[in-house]
């Protein structure tokens, strides 16, 4: 299978880039980091548009950094830039044909991704004859995405593709990307600032700050790590939990997930029965108690063990990491971050290795953060 390894070193503008990573060749990898941390620069380097950096890019055993052999127009990537551009002298359909005409060679298996399939999936039919000049932001984005995919890239690079979309369409497009990735086995590298998008479509994640890789791994692992919390800020701190759908209640529109024997009720009807569904719970939405409450104040009551307590200096808050009890005794360990006031922590006399009861309202569970596996 293909393999993409990237090494970049040097100064570009005010940024000192020193980045190295072997990107997985399947699934969706998120590139996450603050503005100006070098994410877009990595894309430019992959595209062959940067020549004043020490660059080593290996893809399928080819040395792509050899710019004479692999100029930008001979690279196997489909890149969607941050401000996607359509050729405004052409119609929407001519924009799609532009890339089809120029990429006949690498499309022997033409039936793989057809123009019709994308027109259908991305709802482009009514746009085809229109000039590319007068499209709305969302329309433009869909056309550019279709055009990028029609290159039949070996790796798809998307730089904040959803930033211009309304929430409703965003959800649709995320589902499309996830399905597309699974169906055609084209790996995706995806830059985003949205934790919702990460938890919904990300498989792997690479954290980058000031031009350096800070951490990398699977999304469910990294999002619970302090390296990620450091980047997002404590307020956005959250945890990803994975559970198996055990029941859909179509009347009340809720789903019960099984988390190693514990029940978690989430709104909506994500996945199918026995699917694994991923949810995000913000640390600040969690209530803790050292003993079981007589009246259950939320839909959900989970049990866990406090594995670490961090009392923040010059702040009212403390952050706890709780390992959820595993009643099924498998190796699957799930962690939850909780953020409560230090006042509350001391009042309840919560200590490390204590058992705790965790209360989460289903309302606060991130509704967009579903991912069926």
């Amino acid at each position, binding site marked *: 299978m293909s393999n993409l390894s990237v090494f970049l070193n040097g100064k570009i503008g005010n940024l000192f880039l020193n980045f190295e990573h072997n990107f997985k060749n399947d699934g969706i990898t998120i590139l996450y980091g603050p503005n100006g941390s070098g994410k877009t620069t990595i894309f430019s380097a992959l*595209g*062959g*548009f940067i020549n004043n950096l020490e660059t080593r890019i290996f893809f399928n055993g080819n040395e792509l950094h050899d710019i004479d052999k692999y*100029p*930008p*127009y*001979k*690279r196997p*990537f*489909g*890149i969607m*830039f941050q*401000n*996607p*551009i359509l*050729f*405004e*002298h052409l119609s929407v359909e001519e924009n799609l044909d*532009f*890339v089809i005409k*120029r*990429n006949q060679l690498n499309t022997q298996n033409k039936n793989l991704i057809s123009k019709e399939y994308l027109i259908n999936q991305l709802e482009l039919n009514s746009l085809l004859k229109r000039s590319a000049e007068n499209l709305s932001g969302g329309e433009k984005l869909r056309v550019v995405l279709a*055009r*990028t995919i029609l*290159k039949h890239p070996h790796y798809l690079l998307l730089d904040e593709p959803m930033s211009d979309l309304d929430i409703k369409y965003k959800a649709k497009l995320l589902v499309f990307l996830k399905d597309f990735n699974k169906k055609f086995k084209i790996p995706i590298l995806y830059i985003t600032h949205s934790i919702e998008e990460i938890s919904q479509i990300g498989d792997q994640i690479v954290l980058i700050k000031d031009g350096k890789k800070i951490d990398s791994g699977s999304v469910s692992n990294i999002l619970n790590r302090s390296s990620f919390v450091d980047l997002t800020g404590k307020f956005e701190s959250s945890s990803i939990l994975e559970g198996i759908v055990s029941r859909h209640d179509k009347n009340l529109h809720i789903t019960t997930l099984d988390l190693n024997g514990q029940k978690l009720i989430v709104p909506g009807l994500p996945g199918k029965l026995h699917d694994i569904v991923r949810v995000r719970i913000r640390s600040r939405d969690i209530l803790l108690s050292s003993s079981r409450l007589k009246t259950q104040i939320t839909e959900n009551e989970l049990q866990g063990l406090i594995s670490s307590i961090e009392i923040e200096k010059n702040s009212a808050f403390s952050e706890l990491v709780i390992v959820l009890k595993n009643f099924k005794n498998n190796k699957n360990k799930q962690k939850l971050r909780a953020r409560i006031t230090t006042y509350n922590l001391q009042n309840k006399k919560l200590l490390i290795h204590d058992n705790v009861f965790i209360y989460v309202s289903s309302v606060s569970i991130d509704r967009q953060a579903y991912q069926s596996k």
Partner: protein
Amino acid sequence: MDIYHHLTSDFIAILITLKLAIVTCFFLALIGTPLAYFLAFKSKKTKPFIETIVTLPLVLPPTVIGFYLIIFFSPEAVLGKIFIILTGEQLIFSFYGLVLASIIYSLPFWVQPLQASFEKIGRDTIRTSYSLGAGPLDTFFNVTIPLSKRGFFTSLIISFAHTLGEFGIVLMVGGGIHGKTKVIAISIYDHVEQLSFGKAHILAGGMLILSFIILFTLFYFNKRTVVRVK
């Protein structure tokens, strides 16, 4: 007889003027287009220097350019010598001397609108085209040129009109030789000097109407383009 002679003389001047403008625009397209592209996308350190050179004809008095061109075109100068070797004719006071002078004089009028138009297309569009598998030439002819239609149109119209109206340099370099380098602007000057206001009216009025039509066409079809002359 005398009147008929002058009419044909003016008619010849009109033909020479049109020929000069067409030939000049042809060479401007060949020279000015790559130059505009280079200024818009490629150059970094050299850009201010080249831009200054290209723009100089806009601010210099025509007599200054004319003076230096006479020196460079003279049979004793290298350029003049080369031209004599190649064609057996003198460059100075010749039609091709006039063309060369007009190219230099109209260069900013070709380069600037086109450069602005290329810059508006932007690097990202070019990069998008590359990343979709189109090579540099493919991109230039199928993306850059179609997208800068307005720029080409503006450059062509402005350069053409400007070459039609040039007087000072043309007089100095060409000498206003009847049937060879005498253009409309010089004919008008001669008529006025001879107090033949009637003939001057015909040519001047013709120029006025023609220039009006040309500029009106430009602004009518090119509403969104600002003619940028620094």
